[in-house]
């Protein structure tokens, strides 16, 4: 197992659209500071941003954990939202349960989870209706990327 170099946790509060994306911005600054390549940073913060927006839209709070190892970046997002009844359906591009208000803000077009999957090297999602959802994304940052 690769040595862990860094671990940070961030809290996201739901329904606050003005602040939504701040955590992802902080993650971007951190990864740039430690010298991760621009392409890997971009993929990682897109995953973080899409996940953060889902939390803001649907949950009251979540924790985003960033773990950096010698080989990869792992993002874990765990929220207390309503849960996803049908994950396969939710992963389909274009499928959305967003309100009209969310769409007016530019979100809820049904591309969030597909984008997270697209930009991850490994992606895992578990969810329980009434309890919440947990996403885990792994992005490799070795020289062969």
């Amino acid at each position, binding site marked *: 197992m690769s040595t862990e170099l860094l671990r940070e946790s961030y809290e996201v509060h739901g329904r606050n*659209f*003005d602040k*939504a*994306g701040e955590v*992802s*911005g902080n993650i*971007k600054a951190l990864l740039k500071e430690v010298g991760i390549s*621009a*392409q890997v940073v*971009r993929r990682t*913060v*897109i995953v973080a*941003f*899409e996940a953060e*927006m889902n939390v803001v839209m649907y949950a009251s709070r979540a924790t985003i954990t960033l773990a950096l190892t010698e080989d990869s970046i792992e993002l874990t997002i765990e929220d207390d939202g309503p849960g996803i009844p049908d994950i396969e359906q939710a992963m389909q591009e274009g499928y959305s349960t967003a309100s009209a208000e969310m769409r007016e*803000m*530019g*979100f809820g*077009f*049904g*591309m*969030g989870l*597909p*984008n997270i999957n*697209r930009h991850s090297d490994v992606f895992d999602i578990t969810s329980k209706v009434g309890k919440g959802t947990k996403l885990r994304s792994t992005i490799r940052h070795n020289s062969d990327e």
Partner: protein
Amino acid sequence: MNDRDDTKKKISGAAEPKRRTSLKLSEIADLLKCEVIVEGRGLEAEVTDIVASDGMSEVLAGTKSGELMITGLTNIQSIRTADISDACAVIYCRGRRPVETVLQLARNQQMPVLTTHLNMFDICGILYNAGLRGVT
């Protein structure tokens, strides 16, 4: 070539606009008659790809950075999305301009912000005819 082929050739219209490698952001600003609201890191970026959308996740679906983002969405998330995607600039269509708090975020991020009175369809047509293409 028979008459049908000749007709078909005429109906198919003008040849596809030649694909250009890039255009400078400053050249695009001139083409679209933009007003520069925030200069940010400047207008010298070479633009190779465009994303035009009011859906922020559509902006983030692309796999390349450095794109020019065209949008009518003026909320704070438009600038956050541009920063997350590493867009080279944001151009708002239909003369739209964000409020000061959004512009302040753009200044903090050195993100160039421009506006044009053109609508999104016309913007896309002009840039397509100039040889640029959308992000894949």
